[in-house]
């Protein structure tokens, strides 16, 4: 320990010396990404989008002329790494904000970011992060946590709202049966209580939850239980790889159920991997459009994409676009803070409260209008529901499959949830 202490101070002196020159000229922010860990399948497009967007911002004038010095770190979805990295960012030369990633890092750092007053824009959309004051009483206050998009709970509420209408539209009688499926883990469980409460309110019969692991596996048993339970709507709470195993197994078992995905549980890559089993899964997007969709802001997204793909041919999954939106909100918050007292954590936090129905400039029609207030961090309650359509074999390149229309994302409905006070924080 004595040796490490000595080595530490030596290394520290080096680090301080090296970063000292940078500090004045650029705005420092941190970026936690997962390119190699358990959530890398969705972490890669999201993280790439954040990195691309800030590179694009720097190319186009930065923040009021100041460059953003963003440090992207692949923490491999490991909590200790996230904490160590965070301490590095807050140690000597504090970052102004952090672009975070998943449940692992966001939860581990909630206490620290509140203490150190560093805005943390995560891609974890857990409901408890939306309560900045703790007034809802569901969890401790999370004053410095932000995210763009509907919370996990609100996304499920929207899906259930749609499912209730769908049941009526199909002219079926009796109460539809709803089942929550997922691992016993904070991520799949996050929207469980909210979903089951609303399902009861909407007249669903709520079945006991079905458990399946976060990793891919053989889930025939779960599918047989699903079949015998007679569920009509099943929510898949896990991430894509595990969900694919289930929908494939259920297709084989001949289960007739409408699967409802979650925001990280289904996307173009998952549809490709699942093949025709993925046909018909309804899932929420954080943006009104997918890649190449008709929106005035799509041009900006395509420009940003060229940072890491100069050819402009690569198809970007839904997470990429959500990542661009998140990064652009951060950019405008940094801009406001720079003009109003300097880029400090507290000012960046204040910046998020400045606009109503805020859409980052240049991304009209791509990002849903969002409003954050100091009492309510539910940026948006708009949920765009899509259905995956798979018509044919899905081997080959994703670019071609999307171009040929073998895999299509078809808009189902945009659900506008009411901003109910009793739905805050869970």
């Amino acid at each position, binding site marked *: 320990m004595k040796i490490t*202490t000595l080595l530490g101070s030596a290394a520290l002196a080096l680090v301080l010396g090296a970063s000292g020159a940078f500090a004045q000229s650029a705005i420092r922010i941190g970026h936690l990404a997962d390119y190699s860990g358990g959530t890398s399948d969705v972490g890669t497009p999201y993280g790439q989008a954040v990195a691309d967007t800030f590179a694009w911002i720097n190319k186009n004038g930065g923040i009021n002329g100041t460059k953003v010095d963003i440090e992207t770190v692949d923490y491999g979805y490991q909590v200790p790494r996230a904490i160590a990295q965070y301490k590095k960012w807050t140690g000597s030369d504090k970052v102004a904000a952090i672009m975070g990633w998943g449940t692992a890092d966001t939860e581990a750092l909630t*206490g620290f970011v509140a203490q150190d007053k560093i805005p943390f824009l995560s891609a974890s959309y857990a409901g408890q992060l939306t309560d900045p004051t703790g007034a809802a009483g*569901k969890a401790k206050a999370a004053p410095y946590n932000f995210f763009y998009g509907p919370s996990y709970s609100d996304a499920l509420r929207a899906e259930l709202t749609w499912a209730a209408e769908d049941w009526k539209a199909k002219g079926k009688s009796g109460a539809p049966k709803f089942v929550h499926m997922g691992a016993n883990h904070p991520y799949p469980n996050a929207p469980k209580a909210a979903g089951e409460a609303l399902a009861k309110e909407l007249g669903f019969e709520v079945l006991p939850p079905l458990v399946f692991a976060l990793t891919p596996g053989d889930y025939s048993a779960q599918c047989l239980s699903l079949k015998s339970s007679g569920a009509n709507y099943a929510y898949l709470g896990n991430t894509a790889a595990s969900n694919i195993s289930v929908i494939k197994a259920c297709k084989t078992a001949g289960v007739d159920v409408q699967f409802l995905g979650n925001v990280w549980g289904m996307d173009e890559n998952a549809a490709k991997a699942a093949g025709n089993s993925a046909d018909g899964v309804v899932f929420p997007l954080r943006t009104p459009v997918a890649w190449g969709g008709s929106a005035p802001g799509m041009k900006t997204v395509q420009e940003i994409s060229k940072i890491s793909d100069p050819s402009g041919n690569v198809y970007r999954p839904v997470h990429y676009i959500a990542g661009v939106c998140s990064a652009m909100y951060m950019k405008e918050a940094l801009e406001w803070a720079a003009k109003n007292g300097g880029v400090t954590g507290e000012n960046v936090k204040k910046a998020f409260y400045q606009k109503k129905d805020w859409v980052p400039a240049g991304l009209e029609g791509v990002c849903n209008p969002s409003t954050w207030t100091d009492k309510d961090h539910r940026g948006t309650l708009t949920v765009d529901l899509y259905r995956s359509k798979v018509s044919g074999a899905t081997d080959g390149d994703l670019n071609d499959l999307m171009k040929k229309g073998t895999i299509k994302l078809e808009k189902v409905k945009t659900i506008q949830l009411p901003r109910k006070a009793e739905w805050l924080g869970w």
Partner: protein
Amino acid sequence: MASSLIPAGDFRTSYAVDTTIFPTVTSRNFAIAGVVLCALAPLVLNDYWMSMLIAIGIYGIAALGLNVLLGFTGQISIGHAAFFLFGAFTSAYLSSKMGVPAFFAIPLSGLATALVGLIFGLPAARLKGLYLAIATLAAQYILLDFFARAEWFSGGSVPATAEPFSIFGYTFTGDHQYFYVVLAYVVVSFLLVTNMMRTRDGRALIAVRDHYLSAEIMGINLTYYRTLSFGIAAFFAGIGGALYAHYQLVVSYEGFGIERSVLFLAMVIIGGLGSVMGTLMGTAFVVLLPEAMEWLSAALRGGVIDQTLALKNNITFVREIAIGVIIIAFLVFEPDGLAHRWHQIKAYWKFYPFSH
């Protein structure tokens, strides 16, 4: 183990000398100097380094418990992370829901975890080796499932919150202040275990490890000592977990799977089975190795090697592989752990230039 340090002809002529904690005056002075140095560390180190030291301290205490079980008693547990997490949740629960000050919540959760450890240690009375390993593996899964379901206790999908550590109305905030809490616990825990190994119970544990049949013939109650050792291991895991809870202020069961239990095993094995000092070295190694690899990969990024091999994002895979390779190489070339190497280095300098 420390024989290389003791001068030739130095025979122990009294019980007091035989049972001393520190074999030589120098080793005692070194230990004291180490603690004093650590106590001064917050004056010079930044948050990052403080957080590293805190992590070494917290995991070190938990690993110490595992070393009592694995290194001193010869039992095995691959559910240590679950006990660690149990301590964390208990302390969070006691401090935020029951209003128990963190000062008392930490030792209390140590005791609570010890009780749980005793229950899961019961199979140890009957099982040995691989069978015991599987039985303790069950502890890992049972406890994790308990955390997932017992929302009143763990908060379920919402992370549990823990109150900050305070004493006489003074709250320890930030790494620089909390470090002293951890340091105090490290000193007390390591002294406790070193001391325990001199007592009748400690010697009984070692006897159980070395030859359980002989131990039993000598009148040592195997069931009692095997189970006790599980209780001790869980106690220190609980203390470590509680310290972790009041450091982080939130406790989530994310990231406490089997891989974390294996990391605890790695700390003990790398440090040296049956070495108190080695436990701390092993923990420091396991905590700092990923960081060191991170500095390396950060230095590599964008460099010549990166460009010629077109590594880009794959550099993190190289980093993870390197960590694995280093641990394997370590076990091959240093099977007795860091503590053994440390003694060899000391012996080398002691006999310099006449090393053999």
